[in-house]
């Protein structure tokens, strides 16, 4: 067996190694420029009661999660059980940003699958979503007591992500102040 005939195989194995490693990476996970910046302010009507409003300022003093969701979003269904568990354990307030959705469909969706959110606010035209740099639903922001975004999770929240990333970060932020 001559060595030069092994070159294609060797090259391919290196390539396969990279591809295998690449599967672990998330190409959509672009480092958010918003991390460690103050969370953009908003004031939106809540889903449950259109005449009451909630803003980021109201959450000052608490470590909280902002989860962007929509009834039309397939992946939201995937992360939904994880959010339900998170809500049951009452770790932190979970605010839902109902993104580019209609009120009846959103309410029906929560009735069908359960409502993990402390409150959901309605961002029907997606303007707040633009401020937060949302480019895919779901996305989840972890915001500290001073109203600074500390972490952004892109795509459905998994149990592993909660256990390995979110909970430790939340514990750290709770301790910090």
């Amino acid at each position, binding site marked *: *067996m*001559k060595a030069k*005939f*092994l070159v*294609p*195989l060797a090259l*391919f*194995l290196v*390539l*396969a190694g*990279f*591809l*295998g*490693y*690449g*599967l672990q*990476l998330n*190409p*959509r996970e*672009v*480092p958010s420029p918003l991390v460690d910046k103050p969370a953009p302010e908003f004031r939106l009507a809540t889903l449950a009661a259109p005449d009451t409003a909630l803003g980021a300022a109201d959450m000052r003093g608490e470590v909280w999660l902002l989860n962007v969701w929509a009834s*039309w979003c*397939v992946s939201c269904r995937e992360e939904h059980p994880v959010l339900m568990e998170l809500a049951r354990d009452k770790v932190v307030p979970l605010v839902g940003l109902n993104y*580019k959705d209609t009120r009846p469909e959103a309410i029906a969706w929560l009735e069908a699958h359960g409502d993990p959110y402390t409150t959901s606010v309605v961002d029907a035209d997606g303007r707040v979503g633009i401020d937060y740099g949302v480019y895919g639903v779901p996305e989840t922001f972890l915001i500290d007591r001073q109203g600074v975004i500390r972490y952004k999770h892109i795509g459905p929240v998994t149990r592993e992500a909660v256990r390995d990333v979110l909970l430790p970060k939340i514990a750290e932020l709770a301790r910090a102040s």
Partner: protein
Amino acid sequence: MIPELGHFSLILALVLALVQAIVPMVGANRNRIALMAVGRPAAQGQFLAIAFAFGCLTWAFLTSDFSLQLAAVNSHTDTPLIYKITGVWGNHEGSLLLWALSLSLWTVAVTVFSRNLPDAFMARVLGVLGWISAGFLSFTLITSNPFDRLLPAVAQGRDLNPLLQDAGMIIHPPLLYMGYVGFSVAFAFAIAALLSGRMDAAWARWSRPWTTVAWVFLTAGIAVGSGWAYYELGWGGWWFWDPVENASFMPWLLGTALIHSLAVTEKRGAFRSWTILLAISAFSLSLLGTFLVRSGVITSVHAFATDPRRGLFILALLVVVIGVSLTLFAWRAPKLSGGGSFGLVSRDATLLGNNVLLAVATGSVLLGTLYPLFLDALNLGKISVGPPYFEAVFVPLMTPVVVLMVLGPFVRWKGDGVGRVLRPLLPVMVASIAIGLGVAFAVGHVTVRTVLGLVLASWVLLGSARLLASRFAERRGASAAAVLRGIPAAWWGMWLAHVGIGIFIIGATMAGSLNERLDVKMQPGQTAQLAGYTFTFRGVADAPGPNYDAARATIDVTRSGIPVATLHPEKRFYVAQQMPMTEASIDIGPFRDVYVNLGDRLDDGSWVVGLFYKPFISWVWLGCLLMAVGGVFAASDRRYRRLAEREAPAGAARRTT
């Protein structure tokens, strides 16, 4: 019930694929005719089973059976009939089934058209194809079952992605898959050759038509896809160096190299290990393309759903298929002797040069496509590689390819004199440089890119004309009709495909250099000017479609007061998918397209309108069409059939014993 029948049928197909993968291979090794003979009926039965499964899936879409998850996610009762059908493969699971269907179709074609292959060789070819099919069918069944139920059923489906609701999408995926998967035949021939040690001119002659036909499908598939991007994405571009486009372009480049390398192996018995390596690599890149698209390892406008299990499975498949075949190559290929020697000025050398350049070009596209992944994996940051990289690398690599491409047919095999080759070509060379510079000056766009493109295009077209003329010169005295009749189909194929390249270069150069665009805000009655055309905005009316609402604009196009066209770009809103779409309107002409799309409505009641002037853009696709037609001519050459007939008695005799 019907989806369950389909599911069952697909499992049956997997069983038959395994039979086809194992039994004939064992037969070939032990020289048992009865075992070898199992391959053919297994392959044909497998095709019937997959076709039946595909039919069941289509039926679920046609009858809007939304208890089938795939139909619920990708169809809707209001979807037009044709898009209910194309919705079958406009998604991950269905497209895998289409992949398996085209593989089994190719396999059946091999059992029908290559009946004269030696039994052992045929058994190994079918065995290899059986393994590939078994891999893909188990991938489909284990990770991406298209027949999964959604219980309880939903009342209404979510409709097909509006981008895919387009005439181009009806034929683009089947053509592309036939091309991708078609290289599996050349691959199977190469592996069978490595296994049996039979890698001679006869082997090359058997593989050539199969490779060429697969290449024709791939050419047509890429062209249709690029046409779709041109009018459906509404940006007026026709090639974006998107990872998924690259995934189809890399096998095309290597397939092109393979076609030419096979020619040398058939005529001269040379480049044998290189040809085998190309056959393995072309199909490997098809598989890699499938991996890139299906695993979500790279983001792209085309990326379908991502599921890590699927990525892992298909990577494992990739490693097994490519790893095993390259190991086999490393083990068996060194036994091949080099074949005849040839001089520096010979057709062999020009083809070798082009092969190397095409392989390097493929490597550069692969590098650019995977570079973001490499950097990310090495923690060196997130980047994306765009068209500037590809253009900067690709154009310099393709320039010598185009130069050599014209020289090749003038040069003799084995060795030739520089003077003899250049004598007919010197005037062509001078004329193409003059024409290239002249036209660039005439259109007022003297840049390196434009001049280079025009010179190369003239070189190809004039060179091809000169080549045809020398055919006449060789048979002085014969009537024109007799000369034309005497030229074999394979030669015409080569000639047409090369002319196609010239036409393509004109289209790409002119559309790239001279295109003009203007985004304007227009009120009804207002006009805008672009490239000598006057566009009058007549207003917007509602034009509801079957599954969308639309605003339809009317824009009159005139030139020097003479009406040219009335265009109707639309802005659609697909109800079920809650997705807006722009539908461009194009006046297609032989020397220019006038392209209009409708943007957003502004608060003051005016509309944003995009106006494009695209000179010679249709030549891009005309060129591709000529290449594909050339391929059809080449594959239909009489000598493949004649040789088959000559070998037939021996084969028949062997079968009767």
